[in-house]
Structure formats: C-alpha cells, structure tokens
C-alpha cells in the first residue's frame, strides 16, 4: 500500500541530523531541533492509529502528556531513578491507551473523536484535581534530569537529549515502516477499509484495535518521558486543545498516507511556527490559511508534493492519451 522508502533519502535525513550538532552548537537551534524531533515522533506514531488505522484518535497527545506526568511524578516525588523515566513513560502511556481503547472498540467515526478527546479532558481534570502530586493548573516543575555520572544530558547544549530523542525517532520511523509492511499493518488497514469484510476474513477486530492503540502509544510515552526530563516540567496545557491542534496540523499537513509525511510535517511546522513567533496572534492567522491551502492543493500533504511534481513533469512531457478507437 506504500511505495518503497528510498533508502538513500532516509540515510541522508538521519545523517544530517546526526551530524548537525557537530557543525552547529547554537542552543536555540538545538532546542528547536529537539522539539521538531519530538513532534516527529508524535506525528509518525499518531499516524498508526489515525492514518493506518483510520481511527479518529484524539487521545494521542494525552498519551504523551500522561507519559510525561507519570515520569515526572514518579521520579520527582517517589524517588525513582530518572533512568526509569523511559519505561515509566512507556508503561503509563500504553496503559492509558488500553483504557481509552476499551470504550472505543465499539465506536465508529466521529464518535471516536469525542470519546478520545473526552479521555484527554478526563486526564486533565484528574491532573488539575490532584494538585498535590501534579502541581495543578500551574504545572509540575523540577523534574529530575538525566545524568550519567557527572555528565548531564543538558551539557553541551542538551546534546544528550538531542541524541536520545533522535534515537527514539529513528526507532519510531523504523517501527512504523516495519508496521506498514507487516501482516499486523495489513490487518489494521483492512479493518479501516472495511470492518465487516475484515472480520469475515478472520481478522480479530478487538485484539487488533487494542494492539494498534498499545503499539502506537509506546512512542508518545517514550518521548513524553524524555520531554519531561528535558524541559524538567509538565503542564496541563499539554492536554489542551491548542497543543493537540498543533500536533494534528503537523500530521495532516505532512500527510497521513506515508511514513515520512508526519516527520516532514513536524520539521516544517516547528520551524515555521518559530519563525513566525514574533508575529504574535497574527501567526495563527497565517497558519490557519496555510493549513487550508495545503489541504486544498496538496491533499496528500507535504509528503505528496514530490510525487505530485513528478506527475506534473511526466504529464508535461507526454501528450494526453489520444482518443483511441478499438
């Protein structure tokens, strides 16, 4: 269902990201890169449920926030080593995903949007209500950072967090591209295309749905943990609508049809949003127009642009197929 990824392009993309810190150690660029990488992880893993699964899952960012909060609370308040951050984040996120998946099993389409969104709101209410643990609406602060001996991941402009996030992104992309070409992936897509038909061919609906959610939640959980340790903070805004929309725009603008779309969306959008930061609220106007234009003229998102261009070029070269009499 998907073109073979061009291995050279992948290699080049990661090579640039691996080398970037060696040639540039500006802390602003480093921060933006880390954030873009994190959004890329969120987008491409969200694609598993939203794109491949066709399930309107609006809880993905909540999984991320749950991962961040769990890591923050357990390492800060309950004294777990920050090195447990990743497993804690992943576990919390996967558990959350299974919880939200249970009511979603029986739902379809837009109902899923509401239930998954309501799940995020429910988490938010709990975070707000458990002020002692979570810091309430002001947020959780002073989350312990990652350190190895005397080396802090914050040293050298956060180089530790940079490479850790990059590694997670590489794993995410690898996992998603494996997924898209595996039996698991086919079954997920089959359920999206035609649920009744898939069931009639022996695809186990509930099991696959649950697995899809759990699988997709590993990555936001992991990156949520690293996020919490990197910014040393978690805030209720992470459950908020603006944040959700931001990530969703990245995913949809990048394109849900491919492994690379969300990654491209995350990078382009993070950079764009930074460049426009001085514009204040005006920035949102430009972004909104941009989203609509891209959806209008590049229905497959940024990821679809290369093939669209290629098509145009080919069409320009070849004359239109003439009417042929048989």
């Amino acid at each position, binding site marked *: 269902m998907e073109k073979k990824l061009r291995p050279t392009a992948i290699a080049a993309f990661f090579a640039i990201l691996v080398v970037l810190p060696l040639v540039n150690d500006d802390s602003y660029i480093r921060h933006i890169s880390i954030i873009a990488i994190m959004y890329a992880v969120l987008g491409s893993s969200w694609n598993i449920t939203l794109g491949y699964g066709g399930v309107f899952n609006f809880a993905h960012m909540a999984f991320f926030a749950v991962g961040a909060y769990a890591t923050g609370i357990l390492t800060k308040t309950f004294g777990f080593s920050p090195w447990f951050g990743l497993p804690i984040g992943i576990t919390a996120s996967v558990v959350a995903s299974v919880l939200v998946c249970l009511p979603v099993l029986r739902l379809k389409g837009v109902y899923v949007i509401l239930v998954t969104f309501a799940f995020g709101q429910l988490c938010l209410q709990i975070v707000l209500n458990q002020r002692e643990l979570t810091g309430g609406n002001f947020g959780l602060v002073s989350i312990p950072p990652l350190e190895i001996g005397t080396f802090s991941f914050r040293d050298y402009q956060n180089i530790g967090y940079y490479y850790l996030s990059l590694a997670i992104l590489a794993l995410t992309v690898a996992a998603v591209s494996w997924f898209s070409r595996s039996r698991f992936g086919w079954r997920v897509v089959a359920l999206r295309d035609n649920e009744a038909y898939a069931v009639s061919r022996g695809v186990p609906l509930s099991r696959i749905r649950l697995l899809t959610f759990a699988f997709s939640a590993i990555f936001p959980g992991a990156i949520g943990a690293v996020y919490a340790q990197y910014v040393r903070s978690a805030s209720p805004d992470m459950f908020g609508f603006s944040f959700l929309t931001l990530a969703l725009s990245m995913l949809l603008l990048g394109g849900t049809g491919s492994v690379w779309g969300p990654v491209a969306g995350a990078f382009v959008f993070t950079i764009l949003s930074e460049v426009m930061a001085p514009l204040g609220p005006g920035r949102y106007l430009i972004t909104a127009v941009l989203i609509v234009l891209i959806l209008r003229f590049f229905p497959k998102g940024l990821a679809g642009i290369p093939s669209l261009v290629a098509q145009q070029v080919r069409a320009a070269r070849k004359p239109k*197929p003439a*009417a*042929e*009499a048989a």
Partner: protein
Amino acid sequence: MAELALDVRALNAGYGRVPVLHGISFAIAKGENVGLIGPNGHGKSTLFRTLSGLLRAWSGTVTFLGEDITNRPAAEIVERGLIHVPQGNTLFPDLTVQENLSLGAFAKGPRAERRRSIERVFALFPRLAERRGQRCRTLSGGERQMVAIGCGLMGLPNLLILDEPTLGLSPKLKTDLRDAVAEIIRSGVQTIIVEQDPEFLQTLATRILLVSEGVVHTEISGAGGLEHKRIVEMYFGHA
C-alpha cells in the same frame, strides 16, 4: 432525419487522471428508445454520470433537445428533463418512500405536479403505495429499485436513463419491471436503458449500442423490436 433528442460528440471523461471515455459519440433521435450493453467497467455508468453533470467532461459536447448542456450543473440538466436513475439504487436511505419520491420532484416544474406524479408512480408500482411511510434503508433490493425509478419519473423526464435497473432483481420482478418500463415508454417518455441481460432490452429498445473501452463499438437496430439472436451475437462477438 428526425430531430435529435440527444447528441453526444467526442466525449472524453474519467476519474482523476485516468480516462474512461475515449471520445465517445452517438446520437438519439426523438422518440427512440435505446438500449446499451457492454462489458463491465467499460464506461457505461461513467457516460451517464457525465451526461447528467455529476462528472466533468474533459472535452467534447453534449446537446440535449438542441441545447448545449456540456458541464452544466446537475440541477439544471434535471430541470431540462434529462433524468438519470443511477446504478445501485442508493436513494436517501433514512427518508421514507414518500419523501424520496417527493424529492424526485424537486425541480420547479415537477414540484407543481407532485401530487399527480406520485399517484402515477403508485399506480405503476402498487407495492410502493403500501410502503409509503417506510424508510428506504429497510426496503428489499427490488423495492428500492422501484423507488429509484419512481423518483426518476417524479422529475417529469423527457429522457429517462436507467442504469442497470434489473441488477439483483428476481426473475419475476424483472418481468414486472419490464412491463412497467414499457408502460412508461407508452406514456411518452423516451428512455436509455443499460442492461447486462439482453432479453430485458429486447422488447423495449428500438436500437442497441455496444459500449466497449469507452467508445460505441457496434450498434444494431430494428423497427419495433430486436431479435434476441442478433443481440446475443453482438455481445459474444466482442466480449
């Protein structure tokens, strides 16, 4: 030569960038009833979708009763009386039979005639009268086909296009339907009927076109009816 009802010239159309119609041309004189046959997926439905304004023509012209209707909005084409009953009788599933029929008369002219038209449809398909309050979703395939044709009649057609009206109908209903269509033709409505089943066309059509690979491939005609054998020949000769 008789005045033309429909004149299709060098029509090209398709989906996305994939062409389906490859410059198809044909003309239908007033009073003619034409049958269309041809292999699956060779563009019969696409042709009608283009005629009725659902699909944009890439090039070519469609002239209906002397006026150019190429790429006019569907509603305008319906108002002129070119009415297309689509394949697969999808209807408005959550509206009742009566509501479906009423909406068939949405255009201005037919709206005024609505009551009389509905009575006419019920006379033609008495079964629908019994089920006027039922949601179309729960009708059986045959009943839905009747509603679909009924909706077409409600629009007071000059030319009624039926796309595979017998699809999935029981043999008995097929016969009933054939009688009903004959009745419609007798009442002065001109028809184009697409069918896989040559027998169905035999008594209804005055001329049969074989559409294949997006063009009219062959045609046969005969005054007042066609020989079964010739149709079948035509069919098998090119399958």
